[in-house]
């Protein structure tokens, strides 16, 4: 399997471990990611609200470049925001001929053009959670993550508005499913699609800290050992700002936040270090040491009490 790959700026900086682990895991599964030649920044959230046409042109250029190497397959973005910007630009260019013309006028300056709708883009998660057969993943597992309790965190940008008609965006399950293939326990995580605060840390830190606190608390309340994310922004906020949250709210959160590709790597038998683990702020060492050799015995489900009414289970 082959894809075009648009890493985005974060994966060259703070989220290097995301990139490294994704490549390693991909290679193990026989997937080749071909980087889009000469790609540029997606414009993040800010640019869209400052200058729409320029913002659409930024993503339009990435789409045009991906189209030039279309023979490699669909375009994959590991960052939820990059993907959203790609899909948003493509969608609006398809809806508005005028916008498409404007973007193309700009692209022409660089000798490029883009026909809206001609590149299929998707999240890196969908490569591993949808395109690859479940059995292939299980076959590659060398060390099941038995006993590890994981909160699957999708973040808001990967869920809505769902330009590519993805699964239930109110309560997605594909990351949950992938994690359980690796042998880990998925905990109930009701806030799985809630916002991590994004760039709000730069604008109004207290607001961002409250958003982060809610997520950390919800994971801990549901007995998670670790949060697993699919977006560099989410990882950064939950991990790097955990300390600030603790100081601001006088809490004592200490929950590691890793990328899903990193734990896939661990399960596939890579050394944590190769996966960029230990670079995180909240160290995952203690938690990873908890992994058991055998699946934990699930206690037979007992009635909560003599009087309790039975309940349907998902």
């Amino acid at each position, binding site marked *: 399997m082959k894809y075009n790959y648009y890493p985005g700026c974060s994966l060259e900086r703070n989220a290097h471990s995301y990139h490294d682990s994704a490549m390693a895991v991909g290679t193990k599964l026989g997937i080749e990611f071909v980087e889009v030649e000469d790609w540029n920044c997606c414009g993040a959230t800010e640019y869209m609200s400052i200058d729409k046409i320029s913002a659409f042109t930024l993503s339009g250029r990435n789409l045009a470049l991906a189209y030039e190497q279309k023979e490699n397959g669909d375009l994959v973005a590991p960052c939820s925001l990059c993907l959203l910007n790609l899909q948003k630009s493509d969608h609006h260019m398809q809806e508005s001929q005028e916008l498409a013309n404007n973007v193309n006028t700009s692209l022409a300056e660089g000798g490029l053009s883009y026909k809206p709708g001609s590149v299929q883009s998707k999240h890196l998660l969908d490569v591993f959670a949808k395109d690859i057969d479940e059995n292939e993943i299980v076959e590659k597992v060398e060390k099941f993550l038995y006993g590890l309790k994981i909160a699957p965190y999708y973040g808001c940008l990967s869920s809505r508005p769902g330009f590519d008609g993805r699964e239930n965006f*109110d309560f997605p*399950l594909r990351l949950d499913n992938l994690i359980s293939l690796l042998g880990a326990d998925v905990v109930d995580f*009701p806030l799985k699609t809630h916002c991590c605060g994004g760039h709000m840390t730069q604008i109004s830190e207290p607001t961002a800290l409250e958003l982060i606190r*809610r997520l950390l608390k*919800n994971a801990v309340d549901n007995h998670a050992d670790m949060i697993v994310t699919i977006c560099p922004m989410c990882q950064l906020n939950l991990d790097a700002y955990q300390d600030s949250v603790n100081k601001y709210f006088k809490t004592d959160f200490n929950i590691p936040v890793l990328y899903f590709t990193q734990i896939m790597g661990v399960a596939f038998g890579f050394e944590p270090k190769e996966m960029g683990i230990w670079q995180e702020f909240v160290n995952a060492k203690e938690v990873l040491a908890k992994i058991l050799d055998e699946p934990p015995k699930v206690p037979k489900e007992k009635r909560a009490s003599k*009087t309790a*009414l039975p*309940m349907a289970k*998902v």
Partner: protein
Amino acid sequence: MNKKRIGVYVCHCGTNIAGVVDVENVAKWALEELGEEGVVVSKDNKFMCSSVGQELIQTDIEEQGLNRVVVAACSPHLHEKTFRTASERAGLNPYLCEMASIREQVSWVHTDKAIATQKAKAMVAGAVRRVAQHEPLEPIHVPINEATLVVGGGIAGIQAALEIANAGHPVYLVEREPSIGGHMAQFDKTFPTLDCAACILTPRMSEVGMHPKIDLMTWSEVENVDGYVGNFNVRIRKKSRFINLADCNGCGICEQKCPVKIVDKNFEAGIGYRKAIYRPFDQAIPNYPVLDQPNCTYFIKGTCKACEKFCPTGAINFEKEDELVNVEVGNIILATGYDLYDTKKIPQYGFGRLPNVFSSLEFERMCNAAGPTSGEIVLRDGVTKPKSVGIVHCAGSRDLNHNNYCSSICCMQSLKFAHLVHERTGATIYNFYIDMRTPGKDYDEFYQRVLEEKTFFIRGKVSEISDAARNEEEEGKLVVQVEDTLLGEQRRIPLDMVILSAALVPKADSGDVAKQFGISCSSNGWFSEKHPKLDPISTMTEGIFIAGCATGPKDIPASVSQGSAAAARVISYIETGVLALEPIRATVSEENCSGCRICNDLCPYNAIVFHDETMVSEINHALCQGCGTCVAACPAGAISGTGFSNEQILAQVKGLLMLDFAEPELEKVP
């Protein structure tokens, strides 16, 4: 045959047709240009379907000696019968009258008068050429078997069965569950009058059980249906109850003694328990228990037989097998009801994850005095009374991600719940609704009553229900996140208990059942009616009727009305004794059939049988509805349709092509 003398009648339909088509011009043109085809009379009239219009045809047949009639008006679906009957009154074989649909197919779909007029002329020419090829036909008469099969013993099926049986005709009522009663038997109170469901339902149920004209088969399934209107042959599997019914006196001792207790996902909606040998509820009809083989210890481990030991009459029979019975019936009513939407498919609402989120049917059972909590409204722990309760309307309805339709009963059902919670717990109640829909008799009055009980109504679609507390107040509660669209604000309401008013969905096997009986389903999966407004209880297959929620969500009064309506139709068929069917049928020519069997599976009405001995296909004329699918499909050209012969169709096509459509002016193609 003598020379063709054709009369053409072009209808204005008020301005419906005349507004777009130059009707006088069409009539004049037909007389002038279609004389060679045999047109001797051509007239226009404001309303051909009026008695004046019909008399016009009759008089011309009698006085002008017409032997063919063409009426250019609306769709034959509406008035073909009218004009054929008019022709018949004047002594003309009705099948020598043909319609051209210049309303549905011309005036309603065009705006350009010149083009529309030209197209109307082409349609008339087609009909004229076609009718010239028509032969007189006689309707097919089939005798009607007096017995009726009713499938599904919910309130709709019960009503239908009783109406027919009370008129003195035999009924077979087949119900898949151990007892009749359907969903209504699960409820405590019914809106808007709040009468006790059991009090109004159980008398009907016992009437069915004791009726000399009703052969009740519960714990049974229809396995096969053959035949056609008037003469259906139905095979029914009576699943083994592992009980000799003749010996069982319904004492229920077996049920008490059985050591196996399992969650009852059907009748108790998953919120209560039953034994492995059980009756779903005390007033079950019939009152015999059913042994649930997959859960019975004896069948799993080979020992137990407690029920057998304690049964005072020795009625338990572990060897008992399923029984197959064949019955012959003239008509069939399908009243198979609905399923409740599985709210686990709306994971953000937490059903199946959060203990105190309940489904509507769970709540019905909880309210029922005979239910698992003896009618106490409590949290999942079985003891704590809620102090605050949220009721979420439209859970899975009116939502493109789930079901795009309105389930019609849930607003009223939610109001009923609000009232019951208020009455029994005094809790604070929030109803979350998108739009309030209370259109039935006394329904809005009930809404006002619930408003006066100080229920809070929040207009907005709930986006999420979670136990993720943000502050002290929310700790330990279920938090409903909703946009209050009247206030224009996001709100978070912490509550003890939430009830999801789930959508009504077609039965999981509705597609298979439809196929078995040769009827069709709407895109949502509900059984399709023959006409949504004018014939809501018939189907496109003669002799098969539908009633109750099987055709779409509805309340009890509407389900009962449909049960009665379907019964009335069946009774009228039975009383007539014979049924005249349209002679428009397909026939296989034995000589030309190559035996390839291509047509066999194509027929939507299962009308084609294959004879292995002679290796040819044959069409059953009572089943065939004359759709023409097989005629078109037969590679050997061995099938012809009465009233749709190749000559007739080709003549019509030639007529349609008489005019050149490329030219706006009327040009005759040489």
